[in-house]
C-alpha cells in the first residue's frame, strides 16, 4: 500500500481549482461561536435517545424498561442494510420506552428510549483494535464502523458504513469545508483533534483502498488549516493532501465540493463512487477513529450552540440524547431578545418550536436567533415571481428555480421532475436572493414530499391490483373445480338413470361372478384332505364306520 501511495503522490496535483455555478458569498458569523475551546457538557439526569436518528430504517430495541445499561451499550440493533444501531450515552437505567418529541420539521414524536443517569460513568467492556486495523480486511473494519452506529455527521446522517462498501475508490475527499454561516463545530474539531481526524481518514482510506485523501477546508479557517497541515506532516506516506478552497456557499455540499476539487460532475441520479470518489465529513472521520482506537460508539458529538439569542455561544461536546434546554442552560441561557431556535444553519436548517427535545446525531448546530438577526423562512403571503432570474444565477445545481416554483406550486409534478426537482439540494440560495421573497425551497420540499407520497400510493395500488387479480384467479379456479365436480356427479347420475336394466344385469352378473369365485376358493381350500384318512387299515375303517353309525343314531334320537 505504501509504495502505491508514494507513486500517486507525484501524480495528484490538486492545486488547480474549478468553479461551480452560482452560489453566494455570505456573512459567516463564525466568530460568534469559535472563540472558546470545545466545552464538555455536564452530565444530566435524563437522556432521550430516539431509535431512528439516521436515513433508513429504525433499529429493533433490545433493552427493556427497568433494565440497567452501561455507557456505550447498544440499545437498538439492526439487520437492515440502510440503518444504524444506537447506544447509551451514560450508564443508568432505562426508565421508559415510548413516544417522545424529537427535532424534526414536523414536530412529531417517535419511539425513544429514556435513560436515567446513575452518574457512575461505567463503560461496557471495550477492546479496541487500534493499530491492528492495518492488518484487518475491509469487511471487518466496516462492521466496526457499522456497529458503532456511525452516520454522516455533516448533517445528512446517512449510515457511514454503506458508503464504504465500494472499494478501489481512487480518492477520498475529507470534507472540512463547513460553508454554512454560524456553524463552527467542524472548525473547532479540526483545530483541537486534527490528529484523530487524520487517523480516522486513514482508516476509511484503508477500508475503501483509496490511493489518496484530499482534505478540503475553506480559507476562512486558518487555525483549522494549520492544525490539519501539522497532522498531515506527521504522516510520511504522502497519502494526504490539504486543499484550501475559497469561501463560498455551498462549497461544502458534496457535489459542489467534488466539482471544485476535481472539475468533475457527479452524474445525475449517480453517486460520487461512479466517478471514483468518496466524500466523508471530518466529524465522521473523528467518530471512526474513536470507534477503532477506543472502541467507543457514536454517543456524543460536537454541537455549535450559537446565535445572538444565547448568552455564551460556544461549541460543546454533547452526549446524544441531552435535552437542548440543558445545553442552552450551560451556555448561560437565552438572551432576552432570543426569538427563534433553528436546528442546523440559517440556510438549510429548520426551526424547532421547543427546547424540550434531545440532541441527535444530526444536530450540528443549534442557532438561537435574536430579533431581526435572520429572517425566518417566509411562509406567508409573498409577491409574485417577476421572472428576474436572480435565482437562476445563484443556483449551484444549475436548475431553473423559477420554473420549478411554477410547476411545484401548481402541483404539476411531472414537469417539476422533468426540470430536475430532485437534483435540488435545498441550499436555499434561490430563496435568499428572491426579491419577491418567495419561500422557494419550501415549495420544493412540499412538492418532493407530495411526489414521494404519490409514489408510495402507486406502489400500494399496484400491490392491491396484484392481490385482487390473484384472488380473482383463485376464485375462478375454485369455481371451475366446483363445476368439474358437479359435472362428474351429474354424469354418474345420468348413467344410472339412463339404462337401468343393463346396469342391474351388470350388477347381478358381478354378484354371481363373485359368489362363484368364493365357492371356487372354498373348494380349493377343502381339497386339502386331512392326511390321517389315507392308508387306513380295515380295522380302522370298521371303527370309523361304527362311530359314524353311532353319531347317526344319536342325531336321530335327538330329533325325536
Amino acid at each position, binding site marked *: 500500500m505504501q509504495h502505491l501511495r508514494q507513486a500517486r503522490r507525484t501524480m495528484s496535483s490538486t492545486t488547480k481549482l474549478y468553479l461551480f455555478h452560482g452560489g453566494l458569498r455570505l456573512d459567516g458569523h463564525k466568530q460568534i461561536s469559535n472563540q472558546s475551546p470545545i466545552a464538555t457538557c455536564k452530565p444530566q439526569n435524563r437522556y432521550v435517545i430516539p431509535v431512528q436518528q439516521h436515513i433508513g430504517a429504525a433499529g429493533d430495541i433490545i433493552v427493556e424498561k427497568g433494565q440497567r445499561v452501561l455507557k456505550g451499550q447498544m440499545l437498538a440493533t439492526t439487520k437492515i442494510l440502510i440503518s444504524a444501531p444506537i447506544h447509551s450515552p451514560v450508564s443508568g437505567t432505562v426508565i421508559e420506552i415510548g413516544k417522545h418529541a424529537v427535532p424534526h420539521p414536523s414536530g412529531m414524536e417517535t419511539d425513544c428510549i429514556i435513560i436515567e443517569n446513575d452518574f457512575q460513568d461505567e463503560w461496557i467492556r471495550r477492546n479496541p483494535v487500534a493499530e491492528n486495523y492495518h492488518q484487518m480486511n475491509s469487511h471487518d473494519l466496516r462492521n466496526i464502523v457499522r456497529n458503532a452506529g456511525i452516520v454522516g455527521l455533516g448533517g445528512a446522517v446517512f449510515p457511514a458504513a454503506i458508503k464504504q462498501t465500494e472499494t478501489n475508490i481512487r480518492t477520498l475527499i475529507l470534507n472540512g469545508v463547513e460553508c454554512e454561516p454560524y456553524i463552527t463545530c467542524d472548525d473547532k474539531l479540526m483545530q483541537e483533534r486534527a490528529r484523530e481526524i487524520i487517523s480516522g481518514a486513514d482508516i476509511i482510506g484503508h477500508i475503501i483502498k483509496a490511493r489518496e485523501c484530499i482534505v478540503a477546508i475553506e480559507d476562512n479557517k486558518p487555525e483549522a488549516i494549520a492544525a490539519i497541515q501539522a497532522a498531515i506532516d506527521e504522516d510520511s506516506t504522502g497519502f494526504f493532501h490539504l486543499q484550501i478552497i475559497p469561501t463560498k456557499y455551498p462549497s461544502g455540499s458534496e457535489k459542489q465540493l467534488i466539482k471544485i476539487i476535481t472539475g468533475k460532475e457527479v452524474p445525475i441520479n449517480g453517486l460520487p463512487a461512479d466517478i471514483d470518489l468518496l466524500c466523508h465529513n471530518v466529524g465522521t472521520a473523528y467518530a471512526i477513529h474513536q470507534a477503532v482506537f477506543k472502541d467507543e460508539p457514536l454517543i456524543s458529538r460536537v454541537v455549535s450552540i450559537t446565535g445572538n439569542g444565547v448568552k455564551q455561544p460556544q461549541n460543546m461536546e454533547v452526549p446524544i440524547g441531552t435535552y437542548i434546554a440543558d445545553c442552552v442552560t450551560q451556555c448561560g441561557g437565552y438572551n432576552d431578545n432570543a426569538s427563534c431556535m433553528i436546528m442546523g444553519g440559517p440556510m438549510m436548517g429548520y426551526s424547532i418550536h421547543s427546547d424540550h427535545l434531545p440532541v441527535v446525531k444530526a444536530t450540528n448546530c443549534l442557532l438561537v436567533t435574536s430579533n431581526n438577526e435572520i429572517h425566518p423562512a417566509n411562509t406567508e403571503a409573498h409577491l409574485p415571481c417577476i421572472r428576474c432570474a436572480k435565482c437562476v444565477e445563484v443556483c449551484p445545481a444549475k436548475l431553473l428555480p423559477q420554473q420549478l416554483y*411554477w410547476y411545484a406550486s401548481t402541483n404539476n409534478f411531472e414537469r417539476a421532475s422533468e426540470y430536475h426537482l430532485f437534483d435540488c439540494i435545498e441550499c436555499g440560495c434561490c430563496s435568499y436572493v428572491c426579491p419577491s421573497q418567495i419561500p422557494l425551497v419550501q415549495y420544493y420540499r*412540499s412538492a418532493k414530499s407530495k411526489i414521494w407520497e404519490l409514489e408510495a400510493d402507486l406502489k400500494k395500488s399496484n400491490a*392491491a391490483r396484484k392481490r385482487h387479480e390473484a384472488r380473482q384467479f383463485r376464485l375462478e379456479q375454485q369455481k371451475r373445480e366446483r363445476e368439474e365436480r358437479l359435472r362428474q356427479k351429474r354424469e354418474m347420475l345420468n348413467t344410472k338413470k339412463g339404462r337401468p336394466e343393463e346396469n342391474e344385469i351388470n350388477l347381478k352378473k358381478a354378484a354371481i361372478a363373485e359368489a362363484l369365485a368364493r365357492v371356487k376358493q372354498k373348494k380349493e381350500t377343502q381339497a386339502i384332505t386331512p392326511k390321517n384318512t389315507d392308508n387306513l387299515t380295515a380295522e380302522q375303517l370298521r371303527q370309523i364306520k361304527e362311530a359314524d353309525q353311532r353319531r347317526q343314531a344319536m342325531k336321530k334320537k335327538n330329533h325325536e
Partner: protein
Amino acid sequence: MLTIVIVLLAIIAAIFGVLLGYSAIRFKVEGDPVVDQIDSLLPQTQCGQCTYPGCRPYAEAIANGEADINQCPPGGQATIIALADLLGVEAKPLNAEHGEAKETKTVVVIDEQTCIGCTLCIQACPVDAILGAAKQMHTVIASECTGCNLCIPPCPVDCIHIVPIEQNINTWKWPEPDGGHAAPKAG
C-alpha cells in the same frame, strides 16, 4: 392498357389484404393497452363505488365510452385530472352520486374480542387483506388493506371499525406555503 392496370391494382390490393390479415393474427396485441393505462391510474381500491365490480371493469367501461371519468371517489380529483389528461378530455368534478372523496386515508380493524369467526368479511375483501378461519378470530393485515370498507356490511356482529392511517415522521409531508398571491395556472 387500362384493364392491365386494373388487374395489377387488384392483385396488389389482394396481396396487401392477405398481408394485413396475416399480421393482424400474427402480431395480435394481448389485452387492451388503453384499458391497462386507465386501470393503472385508478386507485385499485376495488370498492365498486363506481357501480362496476372493480377497478378494471370500470377502466373497461371508460375505454368503451360507457362510463364517465368522474365516478371514482377514492381516487378523487387527482384521478379525474389524470384520466382527463390521458384521454384528452376536460376534467370535471367528482360525481356526488358515487360518494365523496376521502379526506384522510383509512384502514379497518377488527375488534378481536367481538369477532365470532364467521369468515363473511374474508369473502367480501377484494384484496385478501383479512386473515382468519371458521370459528377463529380474524384480523386485518393493515398494510394490505385499501380501506374500501366492503367488509363492514357483511359482518353480523359489527366488529369492523374504520380507523385513519396515522402519520409518522417518515410519511409526514412538508406543508405547502400559503402562496398569498394566486399561483399561476398550470400551462
